[in-house]
C-alpha cells in the first residue's frame, strides 16, 4: 500500500497520516491487496510515473476519490453530486473553498481514474448498472452513465442531498438521474441549454444560448442554496474561475510542448488525467497544488524535449484524435505509442473563436462550454477540426467515436468525409467506447492502426 501511495505522489509524512483513511475507502469500495498490486503494475506500464508532476496529479485524483467515499465519515452535512455537468467543478470548488459542511463532487472523474485506469475494476460496476435500466445490448447505453448509476447502486457513494446533471450533449444522463429520483428518492437539478444555433447565426447565436445556460446555472446556485443554506456569490465564482484559468494556462503549456515536439514527450493517455484534474472540485489551495504539479511537469517535459526523449520515434506520423482519451482504460493510448503514432492533440480542446467580454461569471462559463468543439453543432465543429488539422500540420486523423454518445457518434462519418475531401489526409474512423474496457480489441485495433500508419507515411511520401 505504501509503495502504491508513493507511486501516486504521496510523501512519507502524508502516507502515515492518510493511510487509515485510504484503507477505509478501499475497503468500502472492495479494493483488495491484489487490486493494489495490479494498480502498481498499471501505473508503471501506462503512465510515466517517474515524472514527479504526473505522480502529483494522480495524488489529487486519488484524494478526491477517497473524500467521495468517506464523505459521511468526514462529517459533511450536505452532499452534492454533479454528473456530466460542465461547470460543476467551479461550483464544487467554491463550496470546497468556502464551506467545511458541504461536499460537492463532479462524478465520475476521480472514480474513472482510480477504479478504471489504475485498478481496472470498472466492469463489474457497469454490470450492476446493466441490471437496472442501462442494459447491455445494441441500445448501447453510454458507459459513462453506467459509472454514475453502478457505484451508487453498489453503495460505494452515499445518498446525496442533490444530484445534478446537464443536458447540453446528452439525454441519457438526465433520464438516468430522473429515474434515480424516482427509484432512490434523490432530489435533482438539470443544468440545460438549447443546441439550436444555425450556421447563419454565428457568432451571435452563441450569446443567445449562453444567456439561457447562464440563467439555468443561476438556477443551480439557487437550488444549492435551497438545499444547503449556502449562498454562492458571483465573486466566489470569479475567484475560482480565475484560479482554474491559471491551471488551464499551465495545462496549455504542456499541450503546446507536445504539439511542437518531435518526438512527442508524453502519450495521449495523460489528456484523460488533465481532464480529470480540471474537473476535480478542489479548493483554491488544492488548485494551487494542481498548478504546482503541472508546473513541475512542464519542466520535466522540457527536459525530455531537450534530450530528444519521446514516447514514439522521431518522425512518427502526427495525428489529431477526436474526443477525449479513454477515460477508464489507457490501452488504446499505449497502443498508439507502440504502433508509432504521435497523437499531438485532441479535438475536444478546440474552441470557437468567440469571446464574450461580459463580466458575469455565469455568462463566461456558459460561453466557454458552448464554444468547445463537442459543444457546437456539426456544421461548426467540422471547420474547427479542419482548421486544427491545418495549424497542427497533422498527417492523419484518428476519428474515434464513442458509440454510447449519440451526439458525437452522429458526427463521425461526416467528419471523415469532410477531412478527406478538404485535406486529402488519411482518416481512421474507429467505433469505440470511451468508458467501457470491454470493447477494446487489442489485435483488431493494432492492425487498424498499423495500416493507418502506413497510409499516412505513404501519403507523406507522395507529397
Amino acid at each position, binding site marked *: 500500500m505504501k509503495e502504491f501511495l508513493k507511486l501516486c505522489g504521496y510523501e512519507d509524512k502524508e502516507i502515515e497520516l492518510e493511510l487509515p483513511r485510504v484503507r477505509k475507502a478501499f475497503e468500502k469500495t472492495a479494493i483488495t491487496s491484489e487490486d493494489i498490486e495490479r494498480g502498481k503494475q498499471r501505473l508503471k506500464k501506462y503512465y510515466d510515473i517517474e515524472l514527479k508532476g504526473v505522480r502529483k496529479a494522480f495524488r489529487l485524483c486519488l484524494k478526491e476519490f477517497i473524500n467521495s467515499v468517506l464523505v459521511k465519515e468526514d462529517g459533511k452535512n450536505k452532499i452534492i453530486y454533479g454528473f456530466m455537468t460542465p461547470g460543476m467543478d467551479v461550483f464544487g470548488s467554491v463550496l470546497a473553498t468556502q464551506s467545511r459542511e458541504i461536499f460537492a463532487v463532479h462524478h465520475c472523474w476521480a472514480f474513472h481514474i482510480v477504479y478504471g485506469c489504475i485498478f481496472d475494476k470498472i466492469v463489474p460496476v457497469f454490470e450492476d448498472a446493466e441490471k437496472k*435500466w442501462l442494459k447491455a445490448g*445494441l*441500445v448501447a447505453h453510454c458507459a459513462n452513465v453506467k459509472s454514475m448509476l453502478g457505484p451508487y447502486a453498489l453503495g460505494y457513494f452515499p445518498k446525496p442531498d442533490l444530484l445534478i446533471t446537464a443536458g447540453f450533449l446528452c*439525454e441519457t444522463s438526465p*433520464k438516468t438521474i430522473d429515474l434515480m*429520483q424516482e427509484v432512490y428518492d434523490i432530489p435533482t437539478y*438539470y443544468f440545460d441549454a438549447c443546441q439550436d444555433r444555425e450556421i447563419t447565426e454565428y457568432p451571435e447565436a452563441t450569446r443567445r444560448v449562453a444567456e*439561457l445556460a447562464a440563467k439555468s446555472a443561476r438556477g443551480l446556485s439557487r437550488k444549492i442554496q435551497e438545499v444547503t443554506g449556502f449562498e454562492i456569490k458571483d465573486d466566489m465564482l470569479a475567484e475560482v474561475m480565475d484560479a482554474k484559468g491559471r491551471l488551464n494556462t499551465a495545462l496549455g503549456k504542456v499541450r503546446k510542448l507536445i504539439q511542437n515536439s518531435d518526438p512527442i514527450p508524453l502519450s495521449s493517455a495523460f489528456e484523460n488525467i488533465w481532464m480529470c484534474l480540471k474537473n476535480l472540485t478542489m479548493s483554491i489551495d488544492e488548485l494551487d497544488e494542481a498548478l504546482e504539479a503541472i508546473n513541475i511537469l512542464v519542466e520535466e517535459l522540457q527536459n525530455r524535449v531537450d534530450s530528444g526523449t519521446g514516447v514514439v520515434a522521431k518522425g512518427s506520423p502526427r495525428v489529431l484524435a477526436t474526443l477525449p482519451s479513454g477515460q477508464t482504460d489507457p490501452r488504446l493510448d499505449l497502443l498508439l505509442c507502440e504502433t508509432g503514432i504521435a497523437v499531438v492533440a485532441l479535438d475536444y480542446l478546440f474552441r470557437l473563436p468567440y469571446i464574450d467580454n461580459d463580466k458575469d461569471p455565469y455568462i463566461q462559463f456558459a460561453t466557454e462550454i458552448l464554444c468547445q468543439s463537442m459543444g457546437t453543432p456539426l456544421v461548426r465543429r467540422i471547420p474547427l477540426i479542419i482548421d486544427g488539422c491545418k495549424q497542427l500540420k497533422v498527417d492523419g486523423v484518428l476519428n474515434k467515436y464513442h458509440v*454510447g454518445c449519440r451526439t458525437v457518434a452522429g*458526427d463521425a462519418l461526416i467528419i471523415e468525409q469532410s477531412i478527406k475531401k478538404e485535406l486529402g489526409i488519411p482518416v481512421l474512423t474507429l467505433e469505440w467506447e470511451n468508458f467501457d474496457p470491454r470493447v477494446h480489441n487489442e489485435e483488431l485495433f493494432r492492425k487498424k492502426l498499423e495500416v493507418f500508419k502506413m497510409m499516412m507515411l505513404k501519403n507523406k511520401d507522395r507529397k
Partner: protein
Amino acid sequence: MEDILLSDHFKNRPAQLREARRKGIKVIGYFPGNYVPEELIYAAGAIPICLTAGGGPKPADAALSSVPQIICPFARAQIGEMLLKENPFYNSIDLLIAPITCQHLKKAAEVLEYNGELEIFKLGIPHQHDQDFQLEYFTDRLRALKIRLQKITGNEITDEKLKNAIELYNKMRYYLRQINLKRRQNPSPINALDFIRLNHASFYVDPIFMVETLASIDSGLSFKQMPSASNKPRLLLLGPCIGSGDYTVLEMVKAAGGEIVAEEIYEGMRNYWQDLGIKGDLIESLARGFLINRLPPAFMRNSTKDRLDFTLKLIKDFKVEGVIWYQILCCETYDSESYYFSHKFKEQNIPFLFLESDYSTSATSQFKTRIEAFMEIVNGEI
C-alpha cells in the same frame, strides 16, 4: 366513405403540393413530436407537412452513409428520405423546421444542415419548464420562427390569421380526441391501425379537409351499431415513435386477436388532449400549449412521474389489460424508461411486452411469435 375520400385526397396530395409551389405557395416541413406549431405555418399562408415516414428499412439504411447505426432508425429514415429523393412529400419542402428535441432528430437536422440542400430553422426546445426563463426562451424562438415564415412566404402573420389557424387546429384536436375517447367502449368502434392512420393523415393532408373528415367520422362512429362486448385483450401501445408506414406490429396484434384501444406515442401521433387558448398574446399561447400544457415526452426533465401517472390513468380509463412497449432501437430515453414502467406495471399485475425494432424485416417472425404468446398471457391462458 370517408376513408375512400381521405385515401384519394392523400394520393393526390403530392400533386396538390406541386401545384401550390408552382403558384408560389411555400411548403414547410417539420419533424414530429408536437413541438412545432402548424398554426404559425398555416397562418403564414404556407402548407405544413409533418415528416413522419418510417417503418421501412430502405431510407434508414440509406442514411448509414452519413450517420452510424447508433442513430435511431426513425431519425435515420428522415435523413434517408432526403438522400433518396423518392418520397414526394420530402421532395416538396421549401423550409424544414427542426425542433431540437432528442439527440437523434437533432443530429438528423445537423446532418441535413451540413448537406446544405435545404433551408433549416432550428427550433430550440427547452427540456424543462419549471422556471420562467425557459418558457420565455421558447416564446422568443417562436417569434423568431414567425419572422422567418413571414420572410419566406412574403405574407404577414396577423393575429386574426393566427387565431383562425389555432381554432382550426383546435377543431382537429377536438375531433381526434372525441374519436379516441370512443375507444373506451367495448368493442372499440375504430381499430388502432385506422386511428393511427388518421393521425398520420392529419400531418399530410389539407387541414380544413381533415377537420371535415374527422367530424364526419366522429359523427358516424357515434351512430355506429356495435356488436356485443368483445373478449379480445384490450391493450395499450407505448413507445417513442410510430412512423407513417410502420404498421407491422399493429397488424400483427390485430391478427393475433388483440385490440389496441389506446396509445401514448411521442412521434407520429398528434397531441390532441389539450386545446390552445386564443386570448391574449397568441405566440405565448402557442408556447404554453406546445411546451407546458401537454404530456412531456421521455427526454424532458423530471418527466417520468407525470408520464407514469398519465399511463396508469389511460390503463384505468380504457380498461387496458396489457401493455405493449414498441421501442425503436437506440432510443436511449424511452429504453431507460421502459425498465421503470415495466416494474411499475408488474406491481399492478399488468402484463407487459417489450418489442424492439430497427426497421429491418428480420425480426418480423420473432415479433409474431412473441405477440401471440403475449395474447395468451393476457387472456390468462398461460
